[in-house]
């Protein structure tokens, strides 16, 4: 009888605490029900699935060169909403070039007149260590967010940046729950 009481008490406490912690972390009851409903798919895709930046198309970077601007779609192909939370860029080749290039990443608005949200604005090299960002809004299942990536070389960059070539991988991370 006593053992039964102990087990019952323990299970009750465990259940209550777990539910308290779990619910406290959820943005809304509807999001919570996804977990309670069973196995969910949490996945994203980037489009286009080809390199964005290419000198054959974009030309060369030089001090004061025009911004090279590209768009990248972050598509929610899973079952639950998410939010963009991190960028990290890996470099190969003449990585010093990354210190002379600037990058601005905007999350574009959906509606007409909706202002873009600046997610990052700084040197490309700083993205090498990864940068935590807060996406403009939650991206629901089946929807996407458009990122606008602009790269340019500042007018103050010196001759030491001449003739450098590097390859970069731009990683985008999203997280669930989508609350900031």
């Amino acid at each position: 009888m006593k053992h039964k009481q102990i087990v019952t008490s323990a299970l009750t406490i465990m259940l209550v605490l777990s539910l308290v912690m779990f619910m406290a972390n959820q943005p809304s009851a509807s999001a919570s029900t996804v977990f309670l409903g069973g196995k969910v798919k949490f996945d994203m895709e980037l489009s286009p699935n080809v390199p964005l930046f290419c000198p054959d198309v974009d030309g060369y970077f030089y001090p004061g060169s025009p911004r090279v601007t590209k768009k990248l779609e972050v598509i929610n192909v899973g079952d639950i909403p998410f939010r963009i939370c991190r960028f990290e860029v890996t470099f190969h080749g003449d990585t010093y070039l990354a210190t002379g290039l600037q990058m601005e990443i905007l999350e574009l608005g959906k509606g007409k007149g909706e202002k873009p949200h600046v997610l990052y604005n700084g040197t490309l090299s700083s993205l090498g260590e990864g940068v935590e960002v807060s996406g403009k809004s939650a991206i629901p299942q089946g929807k996407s967010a458009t990122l606008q990536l602009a790269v340019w070389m500042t007018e103050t960059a010196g001759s030491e940046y001449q003739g450098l070539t590097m390859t970069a991988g731009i990683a985008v991370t999203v997280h669930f729950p989508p609350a900031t």
Partner: protein
Amino acid sequence: MNKKIIFASIFVIGMLAMAMGIGTYSYFTSTKSSTGNIFTSGTLNLQLSNDNVNWYDGVTTTWASPSGWAPGDEVTSSIYLRNTGSIAAEAVYAYWNNLVDPDGLSNVINVTWLSDSTWIGENSIGPFITAYDANHDGNLTLAELVYGLSHWNGPKTPDPNQARFYADYNETYEHPVLTANAGNIFEIKMKYKFMETAGNEYQGKSASFDLTLAAWQHHYVP
């Protein structure tokens, strides 16, 4: 005793539950990458030639007066520039320097002509005389050109004693003076005259100087 066991069990289970709760506080994350992006910076590569045939990269080209150069003789020399880099140059800045002249020969050589591909056939030496003529005698000697400090160019060149070359008459820099990939040849032509008044003390003497040229992707802005 039983109460102790109960409380101990509750404490341990509570801690475990807390740990599980903390575990649920982490995020689910997903990461995807856009790979293979290539960033390439352009180049400027100024090459020089004495004859518009043989080009040199980063080495000195040489102007030489003809043998038997005598008072009253005038020699014309051209130097040719091209840019084999991948981006164009708006301006070229030049200065005369490193005069080696133990016998003062440069004091009896007048620079009488300077033109370039922008001002074809037009002698631009007038402004140079205004800028560099240290003794204000209306002539520009080679010594004055090398040692002179130009206040005429001052606000428009990186260094006050430099000369500047550009591609358009109005100096708007809308067109590059040197296009990329050796797309054009830019000629700087100069004439040097051995003064007729030079005496016998200059027989068999020689002098040398350097003309240093720098191509700039964007023109100098003070």
